[in-house]
């Protein structure tokens, strides 16, 4: 909004002032506190500073003009406003205001008196000292008046107000010391919203301990024979894909009381990134052999970490694997990524001792798989069957071929 610059009242007895000099011209950018023009009264010559920043749009009173106090001498435009437009609008408003005022004068002198009275009531009484102190200390009198009520504000009131502000601030800082508000990324907010939504789904969890000696051995064989080897996660992914082919009711989504089975297995892999968690999706994962799957996974994870993924690669999943094994987590329950109906949480690999068929103590490596299911779509038995299949593939990867 454009604002008027008015002839200031520089002394108690000042009624008008003469503009001696304009220091600024139309089009000049003016910072708050900059000297705009010079005023001469009977007593003194004073430089007038800008109370607000802006761009000088129009000079109403030229040098040499004598202007009554509070009358407009110039118009200032706000940053971004077209100063020519502001100047034109101002002139229009003024002429219409003037004619309106004349009409009002003739028509309803009573009305005007009323208006004046109304204005008077709003006035805040401030002692001159308080006014000075408030200015020096940058205190808004209106804020102080909220506390003091109707009585005249003295400098003591300003001091009290400032003390109260300091106390308030101290309390705030104290609170801040134990609780630091964090700026949230859009990703974080999305995660929060989606998971809160997901939590509405009635989850059931099935846990199974599976032996992983075979897949470790398989991996070793890859390592011995070629440069690149699939990770254990890749092998688990392959086992999941193979299992899903046999249990299509798990490769599904639940969308507004509709249950969809999907022909393609779009496998989501949860990846921790700096800002949170993303789940890149390997589309039509059933097409890939183990090495291809491994390469796809690597590429997606890399892109994800570099924040380089298309939205397309983050959508459309039909099943999700999440793995916290590398953090030494034994097992955990994951929240389903809606609208999917199942999620597999993979725990860490551990050595355990067991008694074999003939009663000998042997060592083996195991890990926990926890399958989360949306009970609206999947019952426990269906999930258990899937988990059984998965377990058999992981423990005997050769069966996948």
């Amino acid at each position, binding site marked *: 909004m454009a604002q008027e610059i008015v002839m200031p009242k520089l002394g*108690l007895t000042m009624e008008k002032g003469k503009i001696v000099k304009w220091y600024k011209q139309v089009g000049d950018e003016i910072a708050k506190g900059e000297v705009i023009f010079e005023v001469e009264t009977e007593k003194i010559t004073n430089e007038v500073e800008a109370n607000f920043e802006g761009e000088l749009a129009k000079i109403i009173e030229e040098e040499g003009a004598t202007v009554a106090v509070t009358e407009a001498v110039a118009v200032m435009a706000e940053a971004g406003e077209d100063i020519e437009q502001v100047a034109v609008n101002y002139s229009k408003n003024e002429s219409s205001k003037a004619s309106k005022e004349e009409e009002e004068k003739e028509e309803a002198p009573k009305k005007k008196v009323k208006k004046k009275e109304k204005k008077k009531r709003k006035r805040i009484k401030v*002692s*001159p000292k*308080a*006014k000075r102190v408030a200015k020096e200390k940058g205190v808004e009198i209106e804020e102080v008046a909220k506390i003091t009520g109707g009585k005249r504000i*003295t*400098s003591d009131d300003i001091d009290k107000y400032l003390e109260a502000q300091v106390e308030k601030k101290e309390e705030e800082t104290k609170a801040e010391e134990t609780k630091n508000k964090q700026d949230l990324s859009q990703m974080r907010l999305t995660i929060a919203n989606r998971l809160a939504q997901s939590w509405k789904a009635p989850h059931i969890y099935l846990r199974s301990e599976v032996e992983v000696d075979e897949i470790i051995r398989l991996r070793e064989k890859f390592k011995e024979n070629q440069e690149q080897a699939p990770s254990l996660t890749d092998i688990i992914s392959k086992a999941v894909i193979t299992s899903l082919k046999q249990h299509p009711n798990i490769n599904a989504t639940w969308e507004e009381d509709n249950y969809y089975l999907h022909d393609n297995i779009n496998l989501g892999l949860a990846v921790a990134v700096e800002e949170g968690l993303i789940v890149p999706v390997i589309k039509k994962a059933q097409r890939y052999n183990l090495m291809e799957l491994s390469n796809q996974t690597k590429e997606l994870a890399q892109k994800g970490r570099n924040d380089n993924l298309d939205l397309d690669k983050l959508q459309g999943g039909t099943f999700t694997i999440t793995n916290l094994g590398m953090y030494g987590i034994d097992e955990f329950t994951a929240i389903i990524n809606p609208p999917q109906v199942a999620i597999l949480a993979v725990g860490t690999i551990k050595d355990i001792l067991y008694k074999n068929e003939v009663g000998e103590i042997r060592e083996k490596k195991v890990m926990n798989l926890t399958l989360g299911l949306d009970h609206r779509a999947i019952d426990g038995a269906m999930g258990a069957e899937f988990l059984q299949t998965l377990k058999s593939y992981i423990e005997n990867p050769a069966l996948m071929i």
Partner: protein
Amino acid sequence: MKNLTYAEALREAMAEEMEKDSSVFIMGEDVGVFGGCFGVTGDLVQRFGEDRVRDTPITETAIVGGAVGAAMTGSRPIAELMFASFMGVAMDEVFNQAAKMCYMTGGQAKVPMVLRTPVGGGIGAAAQHSVCNESWVVGIPGLKVVLPSTPADAKGLLKSAIRDDNPVIFFEHKVLYETKGEVPEEDYTIPLGKADIKREGDDATIIATGMFVRKALEAADQLAKEGIELEVIDPRSLVPLDKETILASVDKTGRAIIATEETKRGSFASEVAAVISEEGLYSLEAPILRVCSEDTPVPFSTVLEQAYLPSTEDIITAVKSSL
């Protein structure tokens, strides 16, 4: 220290200056054998002779006019008007001669005279003998104006006034003549233009002159019992005025009450108020208040005179309304 009355202190000041400087002499109605209407000159005629303590005819014009001439020609006259109310008769000599001679002669002529005269009511002396007309002379460029409130101030200020090369209107308050106070034994003067803080306090400043310094101090005593601490400032010389002391005090307390016995309209009190509002407005927490006499002639009736003069209670009321 010795305990003297205000009148005795004034007499001592004159005697000391007359002993020191043979150009100093006294002239006025009944200042000689009678010892002065209020006994201020006392035995000075016996000590210094009729040449230096001169009785004059009843003519204020001649008293002041003679003093101006004597001063211009090398003497240091102390002229006395029996009542400040009579100054009107001599006003041309005060206003057009004494005040302007130095200026109009380009400094070739000096007018080192003192015009002593008692002001004030409170003794039933009626309208034509009781005026406090400080404002008549405070507004005249070329004059210095003094109004002491204690014996010590009276002596020290009168000695400075006698030594000053400018005409000094030296007001004395009649009711104060018989009041006693400590006066230093040694030779001392008090410079013109230096206010005295009679009592220190943080809550409000009272600028009081003459008789009203006593009333202000009484008010301060009573208010102190309520935990209100007044700062009482006596300007002592009204011209030149010690603005610095007054403004510093007002800056400290944020409140200014001016208490003088003059009628309020156009008074010296108004001048002080104007100075504070011009130069100390942003020190103020409350409006400046003047506690002065009613804008009427001074009544003869004692009852009415007491109603006319502001009381200690009036000062207290003003202070409280300012807090």
